[in-house]
Structure formats: C-alpha cells, structure tokens
C-alpha cells in the first residue's frame, strides 16, 4: 500500500511523456526480453545474462568512446579502423616476440594516438569530422589489410587471452571491464569539469568559448578518449576471439552509432546520458544474441540491424519534436 502510494507520487512528479522518452531504450529492452522469453524461456535464465554482457562488451566500450564525440556534436567513424589496426599491429608484434603486457599497452596507445591526430585535425585545422574520420577509417582498414596480407593473426599467449576468456569468482573478466568503463564514463560525464565542458561544447560551442571553456582542447580530449577506447576495444575483441582477421571489428560501426542514438545521445550534440547508452548497447546485443538463440538465419541479421538503426533515427527525431 505504502509502495503503491509512493509510486503514484513519483509518476506524478515526472511528466509521463518525458519519463517514457528519457528511458525509452529501457522500455524497449524489457519488451524485447519478454517477447524473446515467450519464444524461448532460456531468456529468463542467469546464464543468458552473462552471455549478453560478454557479447556486449566490445560494442559497449566502442559506443562509450564514440559517444564522447557525438556528445560534442561531432562524430568519429575511425574507431572501426582503429580497433582492427591497433589490435592487428599489437598482436603481430607480439607474435614476433613482443611481451604480451607491452603489446596490450601498445594497442591502447595506438588508439590514443589516432584519437589525438583526429582531434588536432578537427579542432585546429577545422576539418569536418564526418569526412576526416571516414578517411582515417579507410586508411586504418587498409593498413590492417597491408599488415596482415589478408592472413589472420592467431596463437596468442594465455596471459593475453585472459581478459577475453577467463573469469574471476565466476564473473567473466570481460564483464568487469565493461562495467568499469561505464562507471568511469558515468563519473566523467556527470561529476567532472570535462563532462560539463562536453555538454557545453555540444550544446553551444560559441557560448562555451565565451564562458571560458577551451573548446579546442575539449574537442581534442573527446577524440582522444574515443580513440583510446577503440584501442581498448580492439584488445578486448582480440583477446575474446583469439584471432585478428583482416576485417576485424569492421561490422561494429553501424551498431555503435545505433546504440548511441537509441540510447538518447542526440546526433546534434549536447544531449545524452551514459545510462541511456548502456541501454542502447544492451538492447542491440540482446537482439543479436536473441536471433542466434532463436535460430534465425544469419542471412537476416544485417537486415534486422538496419531496421534497428532506422528505429533509432525515428526515435531521435520524435524525441526532438516532442521535447523541443
């Protein structure tokens, strides 16, 4: 009785419309889970949750990174180039005798350097991020092809594969990395000067500059973080798969954009929450895992992915119309 009363008060406090729009992704997630569960009760088990989180980790880390750039009203397409190139170069050198720990660090550093270059070109040279990062994506995808000559890189030491394949106290290390990244991003976005600056630059860069925020520096930092996260995602994926192929990570691009937008990060900048992004990542992962579990042919997966992105864009457009 008390609880019911409380609930009524809470729902009255928020306008129900805003409540739905700000959390639309979580509503969708619940609906999708229930629908899938009706087809196959396995969706209500603990094991599947673990599975979803593990499979969502790479997408999650990539999306957290690109969300930094979307939040400031830019975009970083190069992440899917970075993920493959950084992982490819790192594991290749590891195969030639480089220490596994240094290889991991190298993978992340490569991503970071790519991010810094993107940031400098976009903030200082005023390059358009869509095109600049598209070019960078093609360069890095090509570079991976050139480095691997089309062959897959395999046979990683156990230490390298630990994060991707092992568990601590029954919890896969992937999940720990996933959640850690989201906690860090949550703190950055909500509690720090950098986070406030990201929202300010995305909301109105001129006002931000006039308010004393070093807009160029914020842009560089956003792209650097995006690059570093892409590098880290490259390591996670290599560690998880145990191989780097010549098209390593390239199919993540559209899903990462879709996850961010479904999660409520506005493509025009200045609006979004990391909790929403997490919801977006989980939603897309659940759908992908669901299609596998339900035995739907992989021939349909791309189409469903496309439909999800379409849905994301429509939700974004409706949200902007309704909330103004």
């Amino acid at each position: 009785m008390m609880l019911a009363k409380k609930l009524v008060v809470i729902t009255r406090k928020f306008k129900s419309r805003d409540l739905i729009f700000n959390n639309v992704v979580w509503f969708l997630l619940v609906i999708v889970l229930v629908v899938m569960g009706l087809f196959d009760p396995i969706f209500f088990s603990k094991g599947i949750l673990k599975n979803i989180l593990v499979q969502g980790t790479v997408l999650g880390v990539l999306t957290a990174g690109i969300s930094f750039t979307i939040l400031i009203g830019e975009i970083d397409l190069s992440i899917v180039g970075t993920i493959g190139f950084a992982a490819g170069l790192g594991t290749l050198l590891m195969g030639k005798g480089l220490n596994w720990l240094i290889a991991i660090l190298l993978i992340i550093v490569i991503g970071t350097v790519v991010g810094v270059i993107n940031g400098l070109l976009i903030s200082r040279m005023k390059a358009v991020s869509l095109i600049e990062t598209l070019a960078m994506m093609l360069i890095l995808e090509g570079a991976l092809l050139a480095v691997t000559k089309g062959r897959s890189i395999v046979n990683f030491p156990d230490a390298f594969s630990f994060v991707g394949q092992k568990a601590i106290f029954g919890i896969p290390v992937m999940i720990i990395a996933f959640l850690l990244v989201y906690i860090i991003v949550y703190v950055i976005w909500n509690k720090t000067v950098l986070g406030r600056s990201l929202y300010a630059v995305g909301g109105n860069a001129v006002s931000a500059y006039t308010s004393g925020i070093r807009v160029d520096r914020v842009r560089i930092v956003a792209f650097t973080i995006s690059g570093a996260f892409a590098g880290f995602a490259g390591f996670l994926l290599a560690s998880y798969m145990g191989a780097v192929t010549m098209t390593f990570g390239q199919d993540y691009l559209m899903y990462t954009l879709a996850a961010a937008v479904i999660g409520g990060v506005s493509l025009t900048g200045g609006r979004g929450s990391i909790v929403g992004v997490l919801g977006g990542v989980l939603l897309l992962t659940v759908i992908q895992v669901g299609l596998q579990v339900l035995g739907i042919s992989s021939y349909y997966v791309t189409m469903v992915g496309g439909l999800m992105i379409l849905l994301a864009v429509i939700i974004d457009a409706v949200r902007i119309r309704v909330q103004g």
Partner: protein
Amino acid sequence: MRESILDIVNVSKRFGPTLALKKVNLSIKRGSVHALVGKNGAGKTTLVSTIAGIIKQDTGDVLFEGQDIGQLSIFDRQRLGIRIATQDASVVPHLSVAENVFLGAWPKNNYGFVNWNEVFRVARRKLQEYGLNVDPRVEVKKLSTIEQRKVNIVRALFGGAKVVILDEPTTSLSAEERDSLFGFVTKLSQQGTTFILISHYLEEVIKMSDEISVFRDGEIFNGYLKGQIDEEKLATLIANETVEFHRRTGKAANTGERTSVKCNNICGPHMRDISFSILPGEIVGLVGFPGSGAREICRTLYGLLSFNSGNVEVNGKTLRKLTPTKALREGIGYIPYDRNAEGLVGLLSIKANVGFSVLDEGKWGFVNSTFETQVAEKYLKELHIKANSIEDEANSLSGGNQQKVVLAKVLGGKPKLLILDEPTVGIDIKSREEILSSVDALTQSGVSILYLTNDYGELLRVADRLLFFANGLVVREEISIGLNIEDVIRMRDSVRSGIK
C-alpha cells in the same frame, strides 16, 4: 474613425499547459501603426503568428477585410497582403539585394524570362525611396546585419503587402537608423499600408504608433491612442505593477586615482589607436556607430577579437594577448549582445550555466557541485530570476530571465571589470530595471563597468562618463551629468562628421 482592415475575434491559443492567448479581441484600422507591447511570453508573438498563419488559433476568428482567413495557409495570406518581417532577417544570403527584394515575384518579359534590367532598376528606386544606400547588385551576405534587416523589410513592403508585421524591427539598429526606419514606416502608413509593430523600445512605440495594445499573460488591453499615454505609465501597464526607472545612486567613493583597467594604443580591425582608462567603481558608457571601434574594443578586452599592437593593463599587469579564459582569470567579465548565440548553453540547466564561472573551484577536475548550487541559488534570489528551480533548462526561460542567468554567470566569476554589450536588448522593462540596479550596486564594491548600448536614455541614467568612438578612435569624452539624449546624439554625429 477609419475602417478596420483586420479583426481578431475571441482568439485563444494553448501551448501545452499554458494558455498563450486568452480570448483576444483586437481591431486594427487601415493605414494605422498599431503597436503591441508586453513582456516576453505575454502573447505578442503568438498573436502575430496567428495573424500571419504561422500557427492556427484553437478557437476564435481572424477576419481580413471582412473575410474569414482563420484557416488559410501562410502563403494564401501573403497573397491577400499580410506579410511578416521577423526579428531574424530571413534573406537569402547568396542572392543579390535586388533578387531578394523581388524574391518569388520577379518581373518577367514577354518571353517568360526574368527581366533583369527591370529588377535592378526598380530595386534601386525602391531602395533609394527607403533611404537604404546599397547597391542592388551586391550579394546580401556582404551587407551588414543592419542592412540585411532593412532589405528584409523592403522585401515585405514590395511584395504587395497591405498589412506588414514588424517583429522587433529595430533591435541593434542605431538611433539614426531607427529614425530613418520610422520615417519610412510613417510615410507608408499615410499612403495606406497598415503596420503592426512589436517592440520593447517604449519610447519609439509612443512616438510612432497611432494605437497601442498591451499584452499581459495572454490577455490584451487595448485602445490606448497616441498622446494619451507616456512611457512610465505604459511600463506600469505592462508589468502590472509600478516600475520605477532606476537611476545611478552615485559613484562609489574613489580610493585615490588608481586605475582599474587601462587600454594603451590598441590597434586592430576597426581600431586605429584606442587608449582610455577606467577607475574602480566607475561606469563608463561607450557611444559609437557600428564599426566605430566601440563594440570592437569591448570584444577585444574580453579576448574575442585579437589586436595587432598596444596592450591592456589590468590592475598593473600588462597583457598583450587575450582569450576569454585568460580574460576571466584576470577578472574581466563580458555580457554579449546576443545571449542565445554567445551567452547561454540553452540545453543546460540554470545551475550549469551559472556554474561555468566556478568550474575551477573543484579539486582534481571535479565540479564542486555544492558550491555551484549555492552560487546558483544565491543569484536566483538576488537577481529575481523567475524559474521553478535552478535545474530548469535555460531554454525554457523568457528573454529577460535568460539575460539574468548570463549576468549571474559572469558575476559568479567575481569580475573586477564588467563589459556589458547591449545588456537590455529584447527584454522586458522590469527585468531591464532590475539588471540596471544590480549593475549599479556592483560598482559600490569597486567593480568597473564598460557599458555599450544604443539606448542613450538608459545609458545616461547609469553612466558616469561617456566615451565617443569614431573611425577606430576615442574622439570625445564627456561627464554624463546634465546631458540629455539629444545632446548625446548631437555629440555622436558631430564627432563623426568632424572626422569625415
């Protein structure tokens, strides 16, 4: 009594929970200038949007020359002769002035081609008639904002308009340009064109309107005829309470002749050699036409424009290069003339906007949220910002309250020099007077103010000293006591003609 051309009958309009128009009745007479005044959000713009067909009323009728046009589209209404010239010049920047004037109604020759000679000839004549001295062949984007706006108005008039709606037509025009615009409007209204004028400048409203209607919270109070009402009475009607015009309480007792900020021989775009100094607690008014160097020096001092030579001395420290970040650190604050473009991040809360000034108060790169909340709460109260809480989005506030948020943001940084660039443009009178009195109060604690505005009445009420700018130089300096608006205009014009 002249016949009415436009009748608004019992029009209501609701936006979500707010009733923007409450059973508004209004009759506008042919050939008259009818002013609509009121605070931001009182319903003026909603009503003219209903008249122009941009939005549709929920209930009630709009009659034009006796015909019900309530359901017609904006284009149909334009064809009938209702035109709106909005605040933001809606000109096509890449087309020539003449093409813009004729936009969509180009005269054609016998073969159906556009008759360009005719276009330029007629455009030139129209522009001259208006006193707008621009080449009809020049691209609009090359004109100043002010000239663009004039082109926009000429276009509305040329499109065969019988009723022209002018929404804040004189924002950021100089007094001289305002006068020329009024002259034109008055002339045309005598020839039979009807004007609906929305303006915050009560002085101009009283001078040029035949009839004035006051909006308050969606209700209309009409029937104030020319000569029956003065500025202070009108202000009281708009606010629904007595508005006292703020007057400077007096300069703070000066602690010696120590200067606060000094500009030494600053040269740069539109600045040839600018030198002046400001004392602590002094309010210095800047007077000058656009391009005279007055606005440029304001923006230079805040680091928004760069200068080639010269330097700025702030409390004895010499600075040769400035950015906003650096200026803020040296205690220089700036309120830009366009609060939406440069002052606020509209998507963020009041708290976050005010908090920009105290971002460096936290440790380890974290925002000091407690302190930020304190500062925001303090200014919400002190500046009478009307909002539900400091968590409200800045976008949701009215213009006057937005400007107060910008002021709060700057004050939060505890500036020693505050630069105000048209701080009261487009905001209601009550807010204006509150801002003026806050600024005045600041000087008691030794803050210096640079005050740039085209509203000389306002300037004379608060400034201690006036600097006149022309051609990138400070050409005259006057103590403002005993001057009136006409004196200021005369001085400004004489220094300009003296240079030429």
